[in-house]
């Protein structure tokens, strides 16, 4: 698998973070792991950059967080809001349209067709 440059994710990180919260609330590390494992290890980002992105999504009202204490540890859990769910749906639709168009243009064409 080709390594993915972090800048390739620019503009898509928000949608990825929203998508891993679709199934239910998660803590920060679980979100990061879900992005990593969900992408088959392709998106192996420095975790320190994910937390600010989560804070920004919360500021936008797409996710909500709550603190709780488990075993003496303060933990912050993020959950998708109704706005976040709508935004995720919109991002998905845009991505399908975009990726279909890009795939159509970038896919390798048979030899004679490539010449025409």
């Amino acid at each position: 698998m080709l390594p993915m440059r972090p800048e390739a994710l620019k503009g898509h990180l928000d949608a990825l973070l929203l998508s891993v919260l679709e199934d239910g609330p998660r803590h920060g590390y679980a979100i990061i792991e879900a992005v990593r494992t969900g992408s088959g290890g392709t998106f192996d980002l420095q975790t320190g950059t994910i937390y600010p992105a989560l804070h920004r999504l919360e500021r936008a009202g797409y996710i909500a967080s709550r603190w709780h204490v488990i075993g003496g540890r303060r933990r912050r859990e993020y959950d998708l809001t109704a706005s976040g769910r709508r935004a995720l749906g919109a991002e998905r639709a845009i991505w399908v349209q975009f990726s279909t168009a890009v795939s159509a243009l970038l896919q390798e064409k048979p030899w004679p067709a490539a010449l025409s």
Partner: protein
Amino acid sequence: MARRTVVKSPAEAKLESQEVEHYLRTLGGQLRGPARARAAVIDEIRDGLDDAIAAGTSQGMSTAEASEEAIAQLGAPQLVAAAFAGELAIHQSRTILWRLLLTGPLVGIWWFLLLVVPSQHIQPATVISAIPALPVVAPAVMIATGVLATTGSLIRWLPESSPRQAALAASLIGLVTLAVDTTMLVILATRVLNGTAGSLSPIIAGIAAAASIGRFPFAGAAICHSVRRLMFSR
């Protein structure tokens, strides 16, 4: 990969704790913003590190290896602090703007009762037009409201203000607050010195002056924080 539970020895646990604490101390020293927000960031990062170390040890790493791996995955403290800088700056600017917006009416109402109401007939348009600070306060309130809107949940629909723009707005509103409070105090002092303060209620005058003076350090701190942000953020 098969997971197995690794029981940490006290020495290993101490090593992990030392490494994590050193990292968090360094990160804490690099973060800029309100103390509560910085503490929340540190708590969240600590929790993530604990999870990452637990995951590493359950996959067979030693505690030292897992700690090192978790910290490397998080990134250098300088990079993490830089990644948080924008969010913390916006958080700080929003806190300042909310405080100044909310204390505005609480301070202004006393000056209004002191200087405007006794000398005006009760007609809303006349009374409002007699507020001397209105030409300065009204645009400041509009700017503050606009920045709060474009750094909050309305960024879904509106162009987002940058951390720098938010800091600039916060320093501007701080300056306006300081200027308006000073002006009102000078007006009151002038009337007292000229002997024309006889018609003013001394109790309301005292409350209004105390409210404005009480806001001085607050507005000054807002300006200092914002100027520092403007100097150190890009």
